[in-house]
């Protein structure tokens, strides 16, 4: 961003921390952008004539006589159809060697949708993965994260979901992506020949961490352009939101705010909600669906980041390695899609809800039988059968390499029921039993 003529240049910084610097200035608007020696910064605090700036690129090497110029506007993104197929950094500058995008300037982090102007989400997103489609069905306008350990293949699963979902646009917001993962996404998008549907805003681990704070807002401003102006269905992928929250805590820490749980800022819930709540279904067809990744440490979901996320998002998806079959599965116990009730049994076959619940209940019995086995107890005949069922259910339906239609998933489940259990053990409403029971 170039400096214009007649702009006032300040050259006296009075305080510098690792993420912020302060100076005396007047006529400055809250959340306005500034350039500090060529680095982009944003106003985060004004007390009298002392203005505190959050410097996105970090303050390393910033001198007290640095040139500070205020730009008179909050962060913006130029939006137009030309965004499609492009890769940008956290500031919205192209990183793919292509030209600058021309278009209307929109403030990022803009206002919220009036709740009465939303529509209740009702369109199913099919992924082919039964652990998702059957047990945790996704719906357009939903927001849902993968809660995953850093070593799990969440980026692969997310890329797979993105490619199979029938979205008009897919927007990737990468925060603290390793360069390898960035190249992985780029590769997947290119190989699928889907590049013209994809827009990426990427902050890699090579970039300063505070820059990440801009990525979700950039991605969602682009998403709102396509969903509102173009009435398209947009899928936004945000990875990794834990690194985003870490960046928030760095800034709040430098501003001497009192930390709440797990040294996170007290406003973490609102900060995350502002992002996730951009997920929306509009009555005229446009929608924004958010699939995010929140990495866990040691599987701890009570940590402030996954905990606050769980309260905001409409469910969560857990990946787990099932040692019995040697594959990664979508954990049916801990995963949940809150919006599935809006589509299962309505957009899918009527027996879907009961089949889903029954299979999970029997899988829970299998887990219990397994504990019994491990503790050296004798197994009953029922236990033996649940164990066999559990293994087959995991392999044929929960594993992430499954790619079938939903009706086929349900039929597979009915086959497994009849193979291992009696009618009374399955205990599904009699009218569905009459229709689908595969045994005698």
């Amino acid at each position, binding site marked *: 961003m170039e400096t214009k003529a007649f702009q006032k240049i300040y050259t006296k910084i009075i305080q510098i921390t690792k993420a912020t610097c302060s100076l005396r200035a*007047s*006529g*400055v*608007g*809250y*959340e*306005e952008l500034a350039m500090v020696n060529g680095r982009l910064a944003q106003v985060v*605090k*004004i*007390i*009298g004539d002392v203005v505190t700036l959050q410097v996105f690129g970090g303050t390393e090497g910033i001198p007290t006589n640095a040139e500070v110029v205020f730009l008179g506007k*909050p962060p913006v993104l130029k939006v137009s159809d030309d965004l499609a197929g492009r890769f940008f950094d956290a500031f919205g500058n192209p990183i793919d060697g292509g030209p600058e995008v021309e278009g209307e300037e929109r*403030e990022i982090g803009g*206002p*919220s*949708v*009036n*709740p*009465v102007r*939303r529509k*209740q989400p009702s369109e199913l997103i099919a992924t082919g993965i039964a652990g998702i489609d059957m047990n945790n069905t996704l719906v357009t306008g939903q927001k849902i994260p993968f809660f995953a350990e850093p070593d799990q293949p969440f980026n692969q699963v997310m890329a797979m979901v993105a490619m199979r979902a029938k979205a008009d646009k897919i927007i990737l917001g990468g925060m603290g992506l390793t360069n390898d993962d960035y190249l992985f996404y780029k590769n997947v998008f290119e190989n699928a020949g889907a590049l013209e549907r994809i827009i990426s805003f990427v902050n890699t681990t090579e970039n300063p961490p505070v820059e990440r704070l801009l990525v979700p807002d950039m991605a969602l401003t682009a998403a709102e352009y396509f969903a*509102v102006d173009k009435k398209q269905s947009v899928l936004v992928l945000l990875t990794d939101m834990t690194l985003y929250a870490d960046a928030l805590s760095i800034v709040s820490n430098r501003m001497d*705010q*009192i*930390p*709440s*749980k797990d040294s996170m800022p007290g*406003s973490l*819930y*609102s900060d995350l*909600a502002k992002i996730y*709540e951009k997920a*929306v279904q*509009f009555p005229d067809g446009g929608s924004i669906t958010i699939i995010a990744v929140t990495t866990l440490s040691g599987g701890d*979901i*009570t*940590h*402030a980041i996954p*905990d606050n996320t*769980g*309260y905001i998002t*409409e*469910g*969560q998806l857990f990946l787990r390695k099932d040692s019995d079959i040697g594959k990664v599965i979508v954990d049916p*116990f801990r995963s*949940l899609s809150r*919006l599935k*009730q809006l589509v299962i049994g309505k957009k899918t076959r009527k027996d879907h809800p009961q089949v889903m*619940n029954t299979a999970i*209940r029997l899988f*829970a019995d299998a887990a219990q039988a397994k504990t*019994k086995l491990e503790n050296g*107890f004798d197994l*009953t*005949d*029922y236990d033996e059968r649940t164990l066999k069922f559990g293994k087959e259910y995991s392999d044929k339906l929960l594993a992430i390499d499954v790619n079938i239609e939903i009706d086929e998933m349900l039929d597979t489940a009915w086959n497994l029921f009849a193979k291992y259990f*009696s009618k*009374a053990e399955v*205990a599904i409403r*009699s009218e569905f039993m009459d229709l689908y029971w595969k045994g005698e």
Partner: protein
Amino acid sequence: MEREVKQTKGKIAGIIANLVTVEVDGPVSQNEICYIKHAGIDLMAEVIKVFEKKVFIQVFESTRGLKVGQDVEFTSAMLEVTLGPGILSRNYDGLQHDLDRMEGVFLKRGDYTAALDYEKIWDFIPLAKVGDTVAAADWLGEVTENVIPHKIMVPFKFAGKYSVKKIAAAGEYTVNEEIAILTDSKGLEYKVTMTQKWPVKIPIKTFAQKPRPFRLLETGVRTIDTLNPIVEGGTGFVPGPFGSGKTVLQQAISKQAEADVVIMAACGERANEVVEIFAEFPEIEDPRTGRKLMERTTIIANTSNMPVAAREASVYTAMTLAEYYRSMGLKVLLLADSTSRWAQALREMSNRMEELPGPDAFPMDLPAIISNFYSRAGFVHLNNGKTGSITFIGTVSPAGGNLKEPVTESTKKAARCFYALSQQRADSKRYPAIDPIDSYSKYLEYPELQEYLKTNISEDWIDQVLRAKNFLLRGKEASEQINILGDDGVPIDYHLRFWRGEVIDFVVLQQDAFDDVDKRTPLDRQKFLLETVLGICNIDFSFESFDEVNPYFKRIINTLKQMNYSEYESEKFNSFYSELQTIIKERK
């Protein structure tokens, strides 16, 4: 209230997120409302701290673009709601602005729409006569709002006694037309319309007395009504980790509870959940009136992406509307989801003002704020001998699912019913996930309620409930023993104990909120079900070996569940019932 002529004015001196400091030129009061003049729009804010000439205000909007030196005008009024006919079936934001009347897809700063429809004509019927002596909240007349007899009352702000000088004849009026003239003891005249204002942070206390509540509030949710009932005018709270079914439970209660008016405060929660209410409530029929649920419902929506400062206001706005309808002698059900978000909003502000923090960085006075709020619910005798009630159920979202955190602990001290949602139950899809052993209803110990249950359900109802709870507890103990010692390491009787608990769990406690029949169980059916299930639990079935117990009880549970899915006393229901009797005879 009209703004006063001599206003206090100020200029912005500092901005940190939604906390703004203002240098003022005159008197201000705590919690006074002021407006920031920004680029042709007024942004509403509330005074939360005063330090000499420096006033701290929390802005109910985004503060983006605000500058030091901008003008601020004070109103000398606290945050007030507008009360009058036309509140029902509205969707408000946290400050009682009508969301449906706002323009555009996105919320615009400073788009403050009116709470009531000032054009709408109401059929007014006078209830008071000229010469009557009246006081605040006495009924002057009535209009019909949807199906609710909406009383037009002497404004709550009127202190002392008044005499009715003039009352409008029956006929059509808008809310702002004069419907009565009252004179005070000095002979001064006061014009009364159908609307009035009231500051949300001050409880409306214009009732004669507040006795202990005694009447059961039927919710149709078996684990509540049967095991831990809530009463008209009672308070309860539902803490639970995410994914444990708080919202589904609250929505079930809001749809089914025996209330005249339902006020729902969606406080810092998901927008799609509010949209679900917007979409469903105008469609669902109220089983009691045959009209649509939305006609008796008001929604206060401050979803998690709406301004944080309005979150606190939203619960107070909801409570004040509830108090208004209670004063008309109505049964009001108030639901707030979730009070934790409100506490977090308090924490954010306290943090920005650099106050010394209490536990988990929450403000020190959090317990006092919560208990004050819960105390505004209750069953009351009005001055005219009629009764009204506010039953309040709040959800709490404990950080990390840990019930030892400050919001849960403070609420536990204030609320009388505790519905603990258990992660373990939710994980095994045993919904509603209310833990039958940890949860309690203090009202069950009230002699007033015990008397009511004896008269209205049956003489030995409470004994039966306690027996059911005992079976559940013994079932849990037996299950622990079996897990430690193994299926064949315990006497068969332990298996029987375990399965008796399971029958109660699967058949009485678990309820399918998405099944048309099962979702709502009327009290007489609950009585039948509990008696049937206890009847089974009391039988000493004979088994040769433990592995016969499991399949046998599974058949019993399956049959009872099929009954739960069938219309009460329908042909299908009766055939499952006789099937059940056959199964029971096999082993008796």
